[in-house]
């Protein structure tokens, strides 16, 4: 270990993006590739400085495509790898996000969302990539996405993102936005032993992939990382359990698509985290990310005024917490979904709730802002009139 402190244990007044960078270092990340972009640049700027201090490498690539490709390469070379960008970069990465999924590559992708579409307003936070991160690449697949509401969670959920990526061999998104990325607040970094850090399993041995099952296990196959004599065959063409390309057997195609999806869905209870506080409530506000703080404030206000209002915040947004939503819907009268976009997760939430309770979407006063709690309350009063 070098002179750099790996874990900056202590209390800091820290920008969310820097907390994310520190989370990556704390989780043992030693390879980061990235391309500058507002409002995510601080993540890579910081890591460019910090990584060499802890023995890691930072590569500024020629573009975002090279960023994700080299990060995937690094992951196959055995490193914990991360790349960080914002919407335009996520859009460019889509093809190779699919590659990471199809090859079951552990990878953390930080998306500090900005107001879009397209170039939009780079420094304004708007949770506009909520579905993009899960469905933006072609074909059928499943990723994991975590949504922080504060600089503290920028740290905590980055650590968790690595944990899940390594445990399940899957790309995990930290789905922040400009608002929380640039927000400064108290961040408490614990000691190393308090962090839950996991590294991928690798095969026990054998130098012929035909003797191993390197892919398509719903129980997560050990990962035959490069350079250790595993003679791994890695392709994102349709392949079988050994990783061997197969472009003709429909049964293999079926497994190629389904197994990596089911791998995640089968472990959804371990992956999904939802902050729920709605016992006794008849109205529940469902939200995620920074809007969650508006929701909590609004719920306090509403309760103070005698409205039995609860609160559900999706910390894990993908895999989608369908059962958790169903449970809410079946125990309350009215769900109000708060999103500061035009309602990206709303159809997914509604699909699980509409059978059991009333449900409405409530956007902010102005897109690109998080809702004013007073506004939420006023609108709810109108809705229930």
């Amino acid at each position, binding site marked *: 270990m070098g002179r750099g402190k790996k874990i900056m244990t202590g*209390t*800091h*007044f820290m920008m969310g993006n820097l907390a994310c960078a520190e989370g990556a270092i704390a989780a043992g990340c030693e390879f980061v590739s990235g391309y500058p972009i*507002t409002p995510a640049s601080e993540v890579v700027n910081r890591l460019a400085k910090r990584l060499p201090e802890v023995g890691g490498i930072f590569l500024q690539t020629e573009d975002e495509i090279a960023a994700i490709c080299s990060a995937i390469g690094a992951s196959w070379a055995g490193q914990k790898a991360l790349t960080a960008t914002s919407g335009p970069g996520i859009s460019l990465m889509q093809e190779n996000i699919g590659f990471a999924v199809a090859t079951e590559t552990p990878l953390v992708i930080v998306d500090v969302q900005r107001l879009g579409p397209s170039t939009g307003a*780079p*420094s*304004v936070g708007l949770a506009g990539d909520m579905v993009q991160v899960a469905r933006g690449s072609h074909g059928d697949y499943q990723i994991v996405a975590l949504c922080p509401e*504060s600089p503290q969670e920028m740290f905590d959920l980055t650590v968790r993102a690595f944990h899940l990526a390594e445990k399940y061999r899957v790309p995990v998104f930290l789905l922040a936005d400009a*608002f929380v990325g*640039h*927000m*400064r*607040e*108290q961040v408490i970094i614990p000691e190393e032993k308090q962090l839950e850090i996991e590294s991928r399993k690798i095969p026990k041995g054998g130098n012929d992939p035909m003797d191993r099952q390197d892919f398509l296990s719903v129980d997560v196959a050990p990962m035959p990382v490069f350079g250790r004599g595993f003679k791994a065959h890695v392709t994102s063409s349709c392949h079988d359990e050994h990783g061997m390309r197969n472009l003709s057997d429909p049964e293999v195609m079926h497994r190629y698509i389904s197994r990596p999806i089911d791998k995640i869905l089968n472990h959804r209870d371990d992956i999904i985290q939802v902050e729920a506080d709605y016992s006794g409530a008849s109205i529940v506000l469902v939200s995620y990310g*920074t809007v969650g*703080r*508006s929701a*909590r*404030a609004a719920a*306090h206000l509403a309760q103070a005024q005698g409205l039995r209002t609860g609160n559900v915040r999706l910390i894990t947004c993908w895999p989608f917490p369908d059962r958790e939503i169903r449970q809410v819907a079946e125990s309350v009268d009215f769900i109000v979904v708060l999103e500061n976009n035009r309602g990206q997760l709303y159809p997914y939430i509604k699909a699980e709730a509409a059978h059991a309770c009333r449900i409405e979407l409530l956007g902010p006063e102005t897109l690109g*802002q*998080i809702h*004013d*709690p007073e506004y939420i309350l006023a609108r709810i009063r109108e809705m229930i009139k």
Partner: protein
Amino acid sequence: MTRTELTIAGVGGQGSILAGTVLGSAAVTYDGKYAVQTQAYSSELRGGYAATWVVVSDEPVVFPRVTRPDILMAQAQDSINRFSHTLKPDGILIVDSDMVPTPPDNIGHIFRIPATSIARNRLKAPVTANIIMLGALCRVRRVVSREALEKAIVDAVSKEQEQLNLDAFNLGFEAVREPMD
């Protein structure tokens, strides 16, 4: 209620956001308070607008946005146009009077600090206007303690710039004739 909301605004390059960071950091690190700082800026690095919002509180901050600031610190005319209407009825406006020659007259408490001239003429360092304004703020209303602010300034600048910035802070502090509290 212990929650104080501040807006600090200017144009790119004036260091408004840094001023907010120092304030928040002082509150959290040296005054044992809670603080959230958020920000907005346009893509021009210089000349575009830049604003930061700070909520300082004795309790953890749930809602992090500043909607009706108690204090607006304006480093440019543009900041007035953008934000003076958001100020609370009895709010405080602190302006760099070099950059805001004609502040609105419908504001309860208004403080005019010629921060840019002070920075330029007394310190030969126009970039310190933001810290001068922070000194003024500290005198006008003790949102965080003077000691905490001074420590946070030292944390935020390089060793060589330390004294310059402490001087700036002091000049700003003293530029306020009649503090509020």
